[in-house]
């Protein structure tokens, strides 16, 4: 029951935060984004043992698919993007919200399908080869998009501003990301408790054994990555509309910022746990905001140092460390069979 109370308290805090810290709404929204991409990165990286450095591909692709879908519902995309900024940019509130809604769904589905296709090509690779392969996809996609004039080329895309006042818009996006974050957490909590969760853990711990036991390994890998891609695609879609103006290399396919941050968050909090990515993302976000505010100019050095320290000294993260010092919290115990005498094998064992 203690746990239920904790969850309710966290929910209330999540809802109340922008009211308590109205000046930090944008930053808090960014924190939710970090939580979402970390949770989904951990699906493959932590739970399944496939470290992707290319999940940012789904973020960028989601951003573009949603934006283009939203625009195409009102204007001709080529005309709209070539007029970038100065020209046509009138959207009614209905057009805005239906563009965002339908665009986000399209983005999620598009990303999920891309993950299946990319998965067929990339899941044959193991360890560092998979990481580099996925990174390659994200970098290539960024380059391709920045040379594609129809979607705005290197200039990127400008989207309409939120049809309401500025503060309302900030709140709107905060709750959009907050809802997606909480939904992702609840979904994963359920998913990891099913056979599915156990199977992807088995793939992580010993894929050959999993194959030898007849587990549909490829099927699990494709489904896992495409679920992650769907969620990241939605996050990318929301981000595009929140940012209003985004461009391909620095914002959409930002391999060295968000693309790496999500990995660091998960390592910091603890790979392969449900809470690890959440805690890691919050911690990382706070550290990042502090360094950006107080150590401006040194922020990248500070972050780099944090990455090095985490990777070298603290590989299992906070949750991994906790599991190590408090294994009983994670359910390890010896248990006698009620009312039965030890079986013959354990007698023989006792005789050893």
């Amino acid at each position, binding site marked *: 029951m203690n746990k239920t109370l904790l969850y309710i308290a966290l929910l209330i805090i999540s809802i109340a935060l922008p009211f308590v810290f109205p000046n930090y709404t944008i930053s808090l929204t960014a924190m939710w984004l970090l939580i979402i991409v970390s949770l989904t990165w951990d699906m493959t990286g932590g739970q399944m043992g496939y470290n992707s450095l290319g999940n940012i591909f789904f973020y960028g692709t989601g951003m573009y698919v949603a934006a283009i879908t939203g625009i195409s519902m009102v204007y001709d995309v080529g005309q709209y993007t070539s007029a970038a900024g100065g020209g046509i940019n009138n959207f009614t509130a209905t057009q805005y919200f239906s563009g965002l809604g339908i665009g986000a769904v399209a983005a999620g589905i598009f990303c999920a399908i891309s993950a299946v296709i990319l998965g067929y090509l990339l899941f044959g690779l193991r360890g560092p080869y998979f990481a580099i392969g996925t990174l390659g996809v994200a970098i290539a996609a960024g380059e391709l998009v920045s040379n594609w004039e129809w979607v705005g080329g290197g200039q990127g895309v400008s989207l309409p501003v939120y049809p309401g006042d500025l503060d309302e818009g900030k709140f709107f996006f905060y709750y959009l990301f907050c809802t997606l974050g909480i939904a992702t957490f609840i979904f994963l909590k359920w998913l990891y408790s099913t*056979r599915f969760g156990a199977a992807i853990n088995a793939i992580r711990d010993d894929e050959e054994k*999993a194959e030898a*036991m*007849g587990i549909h390994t490829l099927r699990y890998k494709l489904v896992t990555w495409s679920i992650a891609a769907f969620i990241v695609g939605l996050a990318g879609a929301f981000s595009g509309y929140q940012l209003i103006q985004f461009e391909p290399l620095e914002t959409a396919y930002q391999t060295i910022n968000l693309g790496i941050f999500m990995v660091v968050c998960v390592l910091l909090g603890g790979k392969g746990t449900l809470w690890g990515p959440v805690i890691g993302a919050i911690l990382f976000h706070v550290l990042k905001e502090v360094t950006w505010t107080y150590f401006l100019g040194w922020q990248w050095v500070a972050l780099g140092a944090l990455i090095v320290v985490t990777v070298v000294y603290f590989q299992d993260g906070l949750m991994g460390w906790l599991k190590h010092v408090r294994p009983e919290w994670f359910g*390890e115990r010896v248990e006698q069979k009620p009312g039965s005498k030890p079986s013959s094998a354990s007698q023989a064992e006792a005789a050893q």
Partner: protein
Amino acid sequence: MSKPIIEVTGVSKSYGGVHANKDVSLKVADGGITGLIGPNGSGKTTLFNSIVGYHPIDCGSVKFQGKEISKLQVPQIARLGLLRTFQQTRIYGEMNCVENMLISIPHRKMSYKDMFKHNSKIDYEKADRLLDFVGLYEKRYLRAGSLSFGQQKLLEFAMALTNEPTVLMLDEPTAGINPTLINGLIDRLQLANSEFGITLFIIEHNMRVIMNMADHIYCLAHGEMLASGPPSEIQNDQRVIDAYLGAH
């Protein structure tokens, strides 16, 4: 010999210059216990790997229940009901014993919907029952990696039983097991064969064990089939004796 369930014909496999299997043929009788012996490095594990699709074979044919399986992938073959255990015992060290068992429930009938289900009460009962069968009941909530080597072998065996295979191929099930435990393990293997109706195909170095259990034995030497026959014949086969002595 009754109808064969596994039929290996003319299988060869080489690693670079090493001919690990040369034109090997054998039959595993349905419902029986078949043994595979041979000195170290004679190609026994390689043959197992060839049968379960672990690596592509250079030539030859492998049939399971009359169906050619030499082009199939490992998980596909496992789902047909042809299962193997590993010489280097493989269990999920980070999971507890029950979780190891639940991972092993047969995936052959599993649809997409089943993948997202929780394990049923029946699954848990089955896990407990089979862990009890191999004598690991008390240890069932311990991390499998914390078990002794012998216990891990027993766990791997219980996992294989959970999978309800038609044929179970065991690579040295008694290696590294304390002699006092070996008799218990033999009993359980024989029960798996007689009670659960699982055909067994066993690689074994312990002659006492294999001569007692198997009803037919194949002997490999230098990747080639040296001899085959019932235990009494193999035991007294001069070529087999020489091969073992020569290997020392």
